[in-house]
């Protein structure tokens, strides 16, 4: 079974950029049936609010991966909407031109419902790019709390998608936004989800397929923060049809990113 991982950070906190490390990642991925990885960049390296130069360096890291294994890595460009329209559009254009960026990756820079997100929507429209938004439940959790100003609850990601129905949104981190997040975006046809991050909690894959349909679910790992054998195993072990499994693990990404 072919697998495409839409959510990876091969270079994280400055580590993983050496050619031998990338080759090892490529080899390990191939052994698991992974035919391609989408790199989202070293998005935490410069803190929550990277400047224009830092965003460019993060995206150059993606280019580095693609130069070494052009048939294996695709990438989304990391943008900081708080820097304004001019900076956002310039970097998006640079990434599309230089790296053939396939989408936009947004991390914990601002809340997804913030007004500056209009710059992202403009870039997404202009360059025909999907927007992958880091999303995690904010309400009532006992664990590590990230301020709402930078952490997007599924309600915030849904707000962005509702304001810009013409923009394709991928709400990232299935275990992070959970059952409530799936319900939040069910009636927003421009929103899909990825299965990255968190522990492989039972029932979530099945619920996502039941509520959204398998066409709106992408396999993602959040590598190296998660183990790909586990993140793939949770899909292989889910109580869904083989056809839906294939859609999640490869077909949906192939269509979205034009892999064939």
């Amino acid at each position, binding site marked *: 079974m072919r697998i495409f991982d839409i959510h990876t950070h091969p270079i994280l906190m400055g580590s993983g950029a050496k050619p031998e490390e990338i080759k090892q990642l490529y080899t390990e991925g191939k052994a698991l049936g992974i035919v391609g990885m989408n790199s989202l960049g070293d998005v935490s390296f410069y803190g929550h609010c990277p400047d224009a130069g830092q965003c460019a360096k993060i995206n150059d890291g993606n280019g580095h991966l693609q130069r070494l294994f052009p048939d294996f890595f695709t990438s989304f460009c990391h943008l900081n909407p708080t820097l304004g329209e001019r900076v956002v559009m310039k970097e998006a254009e640079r990434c599309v031109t230089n790296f053939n960026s396939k989408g936009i990756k947004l991390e914990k820079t601002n809340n997804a419902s913030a007004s500056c997100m209009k710059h992202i929507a403009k870039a997404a429209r202009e360059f025909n790019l999907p927007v992958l938004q880091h999303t995690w439940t904010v309400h009532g959790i*006992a664990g590590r709390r990230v301020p709402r100003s930078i952490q997007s609850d599924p309600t915030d990601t849904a707000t962005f998608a509702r304001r810009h129905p013409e923009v394709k949104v991928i709400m990232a981190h299935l275990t992070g936004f*959970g059952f409530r997040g799936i319900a939040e975006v069910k009636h927003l046809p421009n929103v899909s989800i990825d299965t990255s991050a*968190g522990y*492989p909690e039972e029932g*979530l894959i*099945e619920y996502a397929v039941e509520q959204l349909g398998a066409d709106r679910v992408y396999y993602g790992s959040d590598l190296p923060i998660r*183990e790909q054998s586990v993140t793939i*195993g949770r899909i292989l072990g889910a109580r869904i049809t083989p056809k839906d499994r294939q859609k999640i693990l490869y077909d949906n990404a192939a269509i979205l990113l034009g892999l064939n």
Partner: protein
Amino acid sequence: MHIDSNTYLGHWPFAPLPSYTAGKFASHLTDHGIQQALVSPLNAVFLPDPMPANRKMFTAVKPTPALIPVPIINPTLGTWQDQIDECLHLAPIRAVKILPNYHNYRLTHRQFEPFMETLATNKLKLILNVRLNDERTQYFALNLKGVPQTDIAKFLKHYPTSHPLLTGIFRPELKQLASQCENFSADISFCEWRNTLVDLLTVLPPQRLLLGTCSPLLSTRGQVDKLNLAGIPKKSKTLIGSTNAKRFFHL
């Protein structure tokens, strides 16, 4: 075939999990290469006295020898000794599990002294469960944190001749604890990072790691694949997958 050191049977109110009977659960585990499993009653997590759930579990697993019952005990209840006595009477138990955060006590509680003596006298292993789910994703009605790693370290130092199994411990917590104490083993259910086991074996010998899936709360297939597909020597996989559990629980 593997031995799973961390499974549960019963109802979990925060997710639409499959409702397994003991037989169906054993079949599910077998489908994923697990021949035997240590199983505890989920219903005991939310009962003030865990014994009604323990009794039901003993009855449920009796016809299913692949499931080895591990009762949940609350050592801070006035009846803790009665709980252990009754469990010993009901089944040939090999271990008991404690859930300090769910049952609202610290590991420094005064009743741990006689409790630990009783476990030693009866040759019962202690399983200290650190968490049942990730605090960052748990349902808001379950606002709990894992058992603090500092408390576990103090506990292990206070009982140097004990050797509990820690289940549900996070990878960074485990690595930190490994630098402080040697008298424990741990399951791998809540340890995850790229090449998890390669990483863990840099701080712990394979003899102190046990396969635990935390099924059915977590994906059995995903958890088993963490071991099966790990880039570690086959001998280490066998130790983690079954040999250590056989030795630890005298199976």
